C-alpha cells in the first residue's frame, strides 16, 4: 500500500501546486511523522492551496482558521453556551475540531490567541470551562506565517516555533510553472474534483510504518554529530534541543518511507534538516539566510 499511494498522492498534488514537488514531499513527510507544519511565505504563493490539496487528497476533514489581531482563544477552541432547555452550559466546538487545520497567518494574532492553538497542537486536546475535549485523530496543523518583517505581526516565540516539526518556504514558482499556472484552469475547480488517494486509516497505517523505519547505530551517530555541532560550533545562538533531535529522526524516517526505503540514510536526514532545524536555530552573528546556514551545517559535519 505504501509506495504507490504515496507517489500517487505526490503526483496528484503536484498537478495542482506546480513546480513544488520538494515542498509537497516535505509536507507529506511532516504529516507522516505526526508533526505540524509551518509554512512561511508571502501571501499568494499557494500556501492555502497546498493545505487544501493535502486535506482533499488525504481524505481529511478540513478547517481553516484565519488569524487576526482581534482574535480570542474562544474563536479557535469553541465556547460554552447556556442551553436554556437543559439548564446547563453546552460546549460548542470551535474550528480547531478538525483533522486538518489551516491556521492562516498565525502571526497576525496576539500571543494569547496563538497560544490557544499551539497548546491544542501539543496536547491533542482542548480544555474549556474545566471540561477536556479530545481533538480528532489524525490531527494536523498547517500554519502559515507572513515573513516577520511585515507590518502587524506578532512573531512566534522560539518555544512555540519548536512545536512545529517543520517550517518550509514555498517561494515563487519558476517560469515554466508560472506559465502553466497562468494557462491552466482554476485551481479552485481542480481541487473541487480532486479524489482522495488515502483514507484516514491508511494515513494512520503509514504513520505507523514511518515510525518503524530502521535507524542504524551509524545513523544515530550522525544525528548526534549534527546536534552536537549546533551546540558546540558557536555558529548558533543556542543548539538543537533533544526534542529537535527526535523531530529530526522522525522526519528523516518519514522521508525514507516516502523514498521507498526501509532504513534511514544520511541523505534522508540531510533532506529534512533545513526544514526541521531552520526555525529552531538562530545564527549567532550576522550570516546569510536560513538556507545557507543549514547548508553550512550539513557540510560541516562529516558522516561518521
Amino acid at each position, binding site marked *: 500500500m505504501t509506495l504507490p499511494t504515496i507517489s500517487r498522492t505526490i503526483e496528484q498534488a503536484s498537478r495542482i501546486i506546480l513546480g513544488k514537488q520538494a515542498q509537497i514531499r516535505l509536507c507529506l513527510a511532516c504529516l507522516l511523522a505526526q508533526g505540524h507544519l509551518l509554512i512561511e511565505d508571502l501571501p499568494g504563493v499557494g500556501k492555502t492551496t497546498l493545505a487544501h490539496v493535502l486535506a482533499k487528497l488525504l481524505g481529511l476533514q478540513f478547517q481553516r482558521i484565519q488569524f487576526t489581531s482581534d482574535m480570542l482563544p474562544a474563536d479557535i477552541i469553541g465556547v460554552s453556551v447556556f442551553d436554556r432547555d437543559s439548564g446547563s452550559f453546552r460546549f460548542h466546538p470551535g474550528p480547531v475540531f478538525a483533522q486538518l487545520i489551516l491556521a492562516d497567518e498565525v502571526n497576525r494574532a496576539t500571543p494569547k490567541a496563538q497560544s490557544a492553538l499551539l497548546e491544542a497542537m501539543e496536547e491533542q486536546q482542548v480544555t474549556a470551562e474545566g471540561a477536556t475535549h479530545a481533538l480528532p485523530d489524525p490531527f494536523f496543523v498547517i500554519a502559515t506565517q507572513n515573513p516577520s518583517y511585515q507590518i502587524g505581526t506578532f512573531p512566534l516565540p522560539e518555544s512555540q516555533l519548536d512545536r512545529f516539526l517543520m517550517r518550509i518556504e514555498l517561494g515563487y514558482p519558476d517560469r515554466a510553472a508560472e506559465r502553466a499556472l497562468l494557462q491552466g484552469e482554476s485551481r479552485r475547480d481542480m481541487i473541487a474534483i480532486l479524489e482522495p488517494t488515502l483514507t484516514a486509516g491508511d494515513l494512520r497505517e503509514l504513520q505507523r510504518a514511518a515510525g518503524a523505519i*530502521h*535507524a*542504524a547505530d*551509524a*545513523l544515530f551517530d550522525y544525528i548526534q554529530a549534527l546536534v552536537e555541532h549546533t551546540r558546540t560550533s558557536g555558529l548558533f545562538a543556542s543548539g538543537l534541543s533533544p526534542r529537535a533531535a527526535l523531530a529530526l529522526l522522525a522526519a528523516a524516517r518519514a522521508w525514507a518511507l516516502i523514498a521507498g526505503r*526501509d*532504513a*534511514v*540514510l*544520511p*541523505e534522508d536526514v*540531510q533532506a529534512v534538516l533545513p526544514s526541521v532545524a531552520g526555525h529552531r536555530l538562530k545564527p549567532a552573528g550576522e550570516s546569510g539566510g536560513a538556507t545557507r546556514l543549514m547548508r553550512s551545517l*550539513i*557540510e*560541516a*559535519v*562529516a*558522516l*561518521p
Partner: protein
Amino acid sequence: MRLAGSARVRAMWLAASVAVTLAPHVNTLPTWLSGFAALMLLWLCWIVLHGLRLPPRWLMLVVVGGAVAGVLLTFHSPLGKDPGVALLTAFLALKLLETRAPRDGYVVVLLCYFMQLAQFFANQSIATAGLTLLGTVVTMATLITLNSERLGTTERLRLSGLMLAQAVPFMLVLFVLFPRVDKPLWGLPSDAFGGSTGLSDSMTPGSISDLTLSGAIAFRVRFDGFTPAAAQRYWRGPVMNDFDGRTWRVASARMLAKVPYQVSGPRTSYELTLEPHNRPWLFALEMPGGTPDNATLMSDYQLVSRTPVRNRLRYMLSAHTAVRPGRSEDAAILEAALQLPPDFNPRTRELAQSLRSENADGAALIAAALRHFSLSKFTYTLSPPLLGRDSVDEFLFDTRRGFCEHFASSFVFLMRAAGMPARVVTGYQGGEINPVDDYLEVRQSDAHAWAEVWVANQGWLRADPTATVAPSRVQGGLAMAVPEGEPLPLALRPAFSWVREIRYRLDAVNNGWNQWILGYNPQRQKELLERLGMQSPDWHTMTIAMSVLCGLIMLALAGWALAQRGRLDPLQRAWERLSQKLAPAGLARKAWEGPLDYAERVGLARPELAAAVREIARDYCGLRYGAGQPAAPDKAARQLVSRINRLHP
C-alpha cells in the same frame, strides 16, 4: 542438565581448548592416559552433538576414582612432575564433563593455561613454544566465548590473536628486562633429565657406534680466533684408563689447581654451548688454556664440572692445538697407563714385542704401529662383527672390521703391551660449520675415540689409528668414511644434500633460540643491556626501565586504540577505499556526503561507472544503515572491497 544453544557452543570451545592444550603432552603422558583424555573429549562431543545430558555425579565420581588410581598405579606416587602433570591431565579431561555453571568453564580455562605452561617441563623447543602459543590463542578465544555470545568463530580467534599481539610488547620488555637469576626459581625433580644422550664413562665395542646414529647436537661452538682444520678438531672428553679385556673405564683422577703445562704455539678461543647430557664432563678442544667457572682440569687433562650438566651450558675457552702436555708426568699415572689384564690377547702381545724390538725410540714405535694399521687392510664400518674373549686379537688379526672404538682400544692395548704408557680418549672429532650462522655444530654422530701415548721428553702424543685407516673420517666426518649402504642419520647421507640444507637452517634457528631465548641468563642480559647503552645494569635500574617501558607501551596502545576508534570498521574502510580510488579523477567523496548522493554525483561525472558505483553504494547503505545486520559483516565488507577493487576508474 541438557546442553542447548549457547551452552553447546561453549562446551565445544572448551573441548577444543582442552584438545589443543593436551595434544603436545601426548609425547610425555602414559599412553593409556592420552587415550583416556581422548575418550572423555569424544564423550563430550557425543553429548553436545546429540543434545544429551551431562553424566550424573556418581558416574563422574567413579571415573575420577579410576583415573586417579590409574595414575597412582603408573607412577607409584602422586608427587613429582610427571605424576602431577598426569593427574592434572585426567582432571582437565574430566572437568569438561561437568561444566555446568560458567565458573566451571573458567576453571577449565585456567587449567588449560597451566597445562600449557607445564609443556615446558618436558621440552623448550621452538615447536613446543609454537604449539603452546596455538593453545593459548584457542583458550583465549574460549574465554572470549564464555563472556560474549555475539561473535563468530573466526572473529573470536581473531580477537584472541589481537589481544595476544597487544601483549607482545609487554612480553618483550619483561623478557629483556626482568632481572634474571642464575638458578631456576624452583628446583626441578630428579626425573626431569631422563633420556639425555652422550658419551658415558665406559667404552665397550659398539657404545660409540650406537651413539653416532643419533644426529642430535652435542654442542655448538663459535670461534673467536681462527677455526682449526677439521683434522685438528679433537674435542677431549672422558679419558679411559682401566681395561678389563672388554670394557674401558674412566679411572679416578686428581683435580689440578691450575693448568700444568706451558701454553705456547697457535692459540684460538671459542665459546662452547653444551647441550645437557646429565654428566659432569665438559668438552674442550685439545688442549685447553684454562678452565671455565665451576669446572676443574683433572690430572688426565679432562675438564669436569662440579655438577652434572643439566641445563644448556655456555663457556668460553682458549685452545692450544700444538701443546703436548705431561712432559714430566707422575710416575703413578704412567704406571696406571701401562696396566693390562693378564692372559688376554696373546697375539697382540706378540706383535707388540716384535714392534718393540724393532723400534727403540718411542715416536718411531708409534709410527710403526700406525703403519701396521694402515698396511693391514682394515675396514672402517659402523656394523662390525661381534668379537669374542680376546677381542683385540680377533679384531687385529681376524675380522679387521671396526669402528673408532675398536681402533683406539686395540691401539692402546698394543702400545701398553709394547711398554708405552697409553690411554683411550673419548670425545668428539670434527664437527660441521653451519654456513647459515657460522656456528660449528658438533653432533653425537661426531663422537670419536682415539689414543694418547706418552713418550719420554715429549709428553702425551695423540695417535689416532682411525685417521690412519680412514683419513676421510677426521677430515670430512663420518659420512665420508663409512662405506655406502650402511645406516647413517638421514641428514648425513650425501644423497640428501637438500635435507642437509634445510637442517642447516633449522639448526641455525634452533641455535639462535637456544643462545638468546633459552640461554638468556644474567650474563647475557648484562651484555645485551650494556650494548643497549645501560651503564652497569642492576635489578634496580632494570625494574625502573621495565616500569617506564611498560607504561610507555600502555600509552602507545591506548593512543592507537583511540586513533583507531570508529575507523576499525572494515566496512568503513572499504567505503573509504572507493573514495580513494575515485579521488584521482577528482571524485573524492566529501566528508558529509551521503552514499547515494555520492554515487549519483560519480554517475553524472562518469556515466560508464554509474551502474557499478550505484550498486556498491546501495549495498554499502544496506550494510551500514540497513535493518538486518548481515551474519558475517567482515565477509560482506570483503566482498564489497573486492568489488571496489575490480572498479577501474
